[in-house]
């Protein structure tokens, strides 16, 4: 079985983003970028499936500017076999990405597509579900456990009330949650090896996909800040403040 993993390049999770003064977005120039943390978990899962003999090839795909190649190299160093880079400088919305991915799935014919459950930049949490819809495939979102048994993927999902398990007909789209695995660090030899792995460029035009945005971003602003309050010395003083000053207990 071939596994396709979609990955996104985002501002590094440890960076505090700054909103541009003119309200046009957040500052991305000279800011450290990295693979979206949920995408790392998806890559790790695919590599583990390959190591277990369930997958025979792991193919990465990313859509974005030239630098998205760095993100793909990171995934290749983790153990993926090859990568596809849909090159575009245009901002992409989840529906457009899902359409691009559908076109790649039609070319590559994977048995399973893995994605992160959400990207930590736009926090949309849409692309995997949209891709499953466009393909007419089953979707298993927010996965904390994946077991492939023949033509069925058993997926344990993180839901608000706890855990839920669904049996999905393969091929399927699965989006991964935090507790599925702990992504590995690429070893130096694997980083060297990844430099020789193929990254095939493609364009939205070649895939025949209209990626024009549907949403117009009118402005981006900083949320109203919270001011630091006061320090109290004892628990008794805290309870007194909460009762008599804040009135919340």
């Amino acid at each position, binding site marked *: 079985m071939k596994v396709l993993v979609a990955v996104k390049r985002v501002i590094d999770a440890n960076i505090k983003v700054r909103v541009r003064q003119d309200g046009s977005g957040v500052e991305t120039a000279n800011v450290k970028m990295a693979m979206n943390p949920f995408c790392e978990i998806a890559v790790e899962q695919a590599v583990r499936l390959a190591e277990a003999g369930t997958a025979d090839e792991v193919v990465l795909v990313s859509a974005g500017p030239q630098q998205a190649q760095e993100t793909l190299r990171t995934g290749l160093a983790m153990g993926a076999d090859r990568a596809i880079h849909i090159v575009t400088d245009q901002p992409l919305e989840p529906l457009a990405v899902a359409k691009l991915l559908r076109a790649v799935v039609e070319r590559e014919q994977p048995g399973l597509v893995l994605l992160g459950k959400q990207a930590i930049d736009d*926090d949309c949490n849409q692309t995997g579900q949209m*891709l499953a819809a466009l393909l007419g495939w089953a979707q298993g979102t927010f996965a904390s456990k994946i077991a492939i048994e023949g033509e069925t993927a058993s997926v344990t999902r993180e*839901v608000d009330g706890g855990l839920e398990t669904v049996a999905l007909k393969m091929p399927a789209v699965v989006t991964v949650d935090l507790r599925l695995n702990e992504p590995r660090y690429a070893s130096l030899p694997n980083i060297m090896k990844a430099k020789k792995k193929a990254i095939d460029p493609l364009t939205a035009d070649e895939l025949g996909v209209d990626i024009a945005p*549907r949403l117009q971003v009118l402005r981006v602003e*900083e949320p109203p800040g919270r001011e630091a309050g006061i320090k109290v010395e004892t628990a*008794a003083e805290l309870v007194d403040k909460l009762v008599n000053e804040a009135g919340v207990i």
Partner: protein
Amino acid sequence: MAVLVVAEHGGHALAPATLSTISCAAELREAGAGDVTVLVAGADCRGAAEEAATIDGVAKVLLADDGIYENPSAEALAALVQPLASQYGHILYPASTFGKNAAPRLSALIDSQQISDIQAVVDADTFVRPIYAGNALATVKSSDAVKVITVRGTAFEKAAPGGGAAPIEDLAAAGDDGLSKFVGAELSSSERPELTSARVVISGGRGMQSGDNFALLEEIADRLGAAVGASRAAVDSGFVPNDFQVGQTGKIVAPELYIAVGISGAIQHLAGMKDSKVIVAINKDEEAPIFQVADYGIVGDLFQILPELKAALDARKKG
């Protein structure tokens, strides 16, 4: 045009997140988006439909009561809603795991770019939503004819079931393509209030050191009628299950009182709780970022402070 709310419910009653979503729908109606219809799909769920019918501002309830919707898959729900979609200008889901799973599937099927997790309605086409873990707010305008939206529950008041009597119309099941089968659920059972709708939340972080130590938080929670939450670090360390997680990738809460214990205050945690009315932080590191958002802070050893807090709450009760 009209507004459709796809309800999350427990069979006999609507989920709190649905009540907030109905309030958002009411705001859209005020903005000229048309009457509000609530769709209740489930098995033996007439009770939830009847509750929806009593809410002021709900003009109609659609009830799809069928065994195939007992634990509705996103696949089955999308198949049910898709044929109705063109009658509506807005289709709303709560931004719970229910809505996050189901809404994008419908959105793609009707070729609409979903707007996730909105926290304010500017006008019928324009919405405010958090990005980058709430470190920025984007105001976005949609050009899609049918707008699919998930609604952040904490940003809208819960609509109160009241004296309304909207008609309930039966909606035939749309069938199930069999792509996804529900196998089972392990739901956390707790006597405590649900995290996202609790009036008081007490959360523990890595500083709790173990899952067993969460008992210290539970003792406080019992005295305050609070829900217990956790930071991602505590979940990652295996102290508590993921459904405790408050943050960008977990649950968003905005209680009257949020008590953060042994939580440093990573950006992604703040994203889940910074809209709380009053924030208390207990942490041994006085430089911890959590203190920058806390109304009241205590710097010290939580293993000493929590028992003192428990005693102080008991003393107040007696007094």
